[in-house]
């Protein structure tokens, strides 16, 4: 499987191999995304379009999650966008390392996600950072999209999603995305407050609004924070 890598020098080969390994691992998320997306009421084409064009997992899960709970499409898109803001932070950090301009930067931006950031930010040279970013970004892109198609086709043939607990799978998916971020007291407090605000406005607002309403917790906590420690996020 790794024969084509022999033309590369040893350190480069290792970086590419790590990128492909991350791609294979995250491709597995794509299966659950595809199945959950069709269970939420999107068709196979819409599910695949999300993975091809939005291509950032948490935003895609948020969009289909809001649709699944009966929220208006505009609120679903807004939730996806708010979660997409973290990629802006990643871009600010990796852009100086990658040093791309023009069309290269415009193309690279599409594969700017958690994984490609993590696999490039730790490199010591620009060359290694670029190889890490591209190999991870492209491997995740290909496998995420293939897996989405497979998951959507499988989900489509299953019938009533509740029978298979796919409605419960959505909550599990969001928790799995949240879990690694619960690494500080500040983040755990933010998570509890976010959930509490969302639930408290459920009886008062249409579906989709509670999740957006929770975002004020982020602004509120940022306003009252006194300590100004550097961000730990990649």
């Amino acid at each position, binding site marked *: 499987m790794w024969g084509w890598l022999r033309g590369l020098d040893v350190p480069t080969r290792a970086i590419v191999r790590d990128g492909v390994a991350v791609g294979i691992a995250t491709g597995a998320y794509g299966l659950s995304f595809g199945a959950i997306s069709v269970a939420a009421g999107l068709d196979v084409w819409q599910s695949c379009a999300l993975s091809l064009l939005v291509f950032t997992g948490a935003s895609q899960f948020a969009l289909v999650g809001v649709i699944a709970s009966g929220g208006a499409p505009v609120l679903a898109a807004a939730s996806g966008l708010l979660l997409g803001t973290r990629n802006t*932070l990643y871009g600010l950090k990796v852009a100086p390392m990658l040093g791309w301009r023009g069309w290269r930067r415009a193309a690279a931006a599409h594969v700017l996600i958690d994984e490609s950031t993590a696999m490039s930010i730790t490199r010591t040279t620009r060359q290694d950072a670029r190889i890490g970013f591209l190999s991870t970004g492209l491997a995740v892109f290909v496998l995420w999209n293939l897996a989405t198609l497979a998951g959507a086709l499988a989900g489509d043939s299953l019938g009533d999603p509740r029978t298979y607990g796919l409605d419960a799978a959505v909550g599990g998916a969001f928790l799995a995305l949240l879990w690694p971020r619960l690494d500080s007291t500040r983040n755990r407090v933010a998570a509890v407050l*976010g959930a509490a605000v969302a*639930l408290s406005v459920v009886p008062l607002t249409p579906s989709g609004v509670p999740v957006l309403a929770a975002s004020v917790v982020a602004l509120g906590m940022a306003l009252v924070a006194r300590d100004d420690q550097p961000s730990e996020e990649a």
Partner: protein
Amino acid sequence: MIWLAVLGCAVGCYLLKLAGMSVPESVLANPLLRRTADLLPVVMLAALVAVQVLVVPGPDGPELSIDARLAGLAAAVVALLLRAPFIVVVFVAALTAALLRL
């Protein structure tokens, strides 16, 4: 309408990525902006967990409900504590809810 949401989210998410790669890093020097952006994914993912697990459509709009989904979430917590990979966590949550509904 779903297509509009898909395409709108696609254009917006791409522009957010491109903006990050295009504007100078000094934008991050604004501590309020950086803290808000750091906290936003945590807060929204937690809100999504809560809403997905505890809210059902009712006759007069959405309402709170405790059902098999909460057991699915509890199973997901156990799976995460055991360091299970993402797809196993999702599968365990679904399987638990499905078994409870048999």
